[in-house]
């Protein structure tokens, strides 16, 4: 009798846990089959890039948060995938969210500037050597950090540096974030060659890398007649 009661309670707890997991959407991927909402954003390289003009290519939209220092690792992985599949019409778009405007004077030393931040700041550099930063740092400080990193110095703890080959777009008014309902969480959307959203990933550990790499390969294998 006791054993049956215990097993009953265990079963109930398991079911509750499963329900909670579903409600919190801890599941790694959700398939979406709607047309991806169009947008046009300016890139770091001063080009205007429109999503619907990329139809025919498999597109990965990676939403970048200035608070996500761990995003640097996933960006490097994405960049590797981008270089690997670029010839097969594979495009990655990094969309940089604006940070709160805290602009420091240009003369302030870098170390002192770092202490003013209580979150990681992601600084990205594209192959064209154009640097972008969140609005928390001035361009002078970014320039110093980039130069320092090029010399082989490790960037300070609060700052992460990633060099990527794909375009980084600036979502200054957070319009695209609102459209894609990003609530300050890093997110990745996989779009097929026909412009339909196929998979959605919230940033978790790099354990998801195999999962989304498989999905990307399956989308690349899709034929367009």
């Amino acid at each position, binding site marked *: 009798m006791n054993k049956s009661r215990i097993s009953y309670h265990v079963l109930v707890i398991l079911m509750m846990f499963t329900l909670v997991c579903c409600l919190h959407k801890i599941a790694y991927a959700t398939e979406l089959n709607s047309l991806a909402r169009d947008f*046009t*954003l*300016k890139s770091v390289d001063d*080009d*205007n*890039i*429109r999503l619907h*003009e990329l139809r025919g290519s498999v597109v990965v939209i990676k939403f970048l948060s200035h608070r996500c220092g761990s995003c640097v690792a996933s960006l490097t992985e994405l960049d590797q995938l981008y270089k690997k599949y670029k010839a097969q019409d594979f495009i990655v778009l990094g969309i940089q969210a604006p940070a709160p405007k805290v602009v420091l004077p240009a003369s302030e030393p870098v170390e002192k500037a770092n202490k003013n931040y209580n979150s990681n700041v992601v600084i990205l550099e594209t192959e064209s050597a154009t640097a972008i930063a969140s609005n928390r740092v001035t361009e002078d400080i970014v320039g110093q950090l980039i130069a320092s990193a090029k010399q082989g110095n490790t960037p300070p703890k609060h700052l992460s540096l990633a060099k990527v080959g794909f375009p980084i777009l600036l979502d200054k008014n957070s319009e695209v974030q609102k459209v894609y309902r990003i609530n300050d969480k890093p997110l990745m959307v996989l779009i097929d060659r026909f412009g339909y959203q196929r998979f959605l990933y919230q940033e978790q550990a790099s354990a998801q890398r195999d999962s989304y790499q498989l999905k990307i390969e399956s989308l690349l294998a899709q034929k367009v007649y």
Partner: protein
Amino acid sequence: MKVKFAIALLVLWSNIGQSENLSPINKEIQTLREQVISLNRDLQILEQKLVYPSETKVAVYVSMTIGDYFELDAIELKIDGVTQTSFLYTDKQNQALRQGGIQRLFVGNIKRGMHDVTAVIRGKGVDNSEYIRAISGRFGKMKNALTLELKILDSSAVDQPVFNLVEF
């Protein structure tokens, strides 16, 4: 053997019969499709008239002539000092404008009376120089829909682009 041949004939005959029956159904489906498309068009026109009645409707179009002296990057449109819309232009959209395309930049509603319309145009000139120009005009909104055209013209006299905001 004879039985099999008879069965095969029967199956063939029934298929032919079915395809003959399908033909009027196909025609009916085609007719229905045409009606649906026509209805859809009428609904869209009705929707436009309801959402933007001519008493309050204002529309702004963008056109480019030749476009050798200017590459359009962005336009921000303001009516009475309030930003109504902003648009970023890609290379393909620039090309479409150069080939004669006209873009409907904005459609909205405003009250009757005089209004200030300002367009801030950003782009690149001949030598890749940054261009920021603002042109404005004062227009009266009457009973009919107000339709404005933002023209980007090449002026060979000054080797520069010229911008005009006129009523259509």
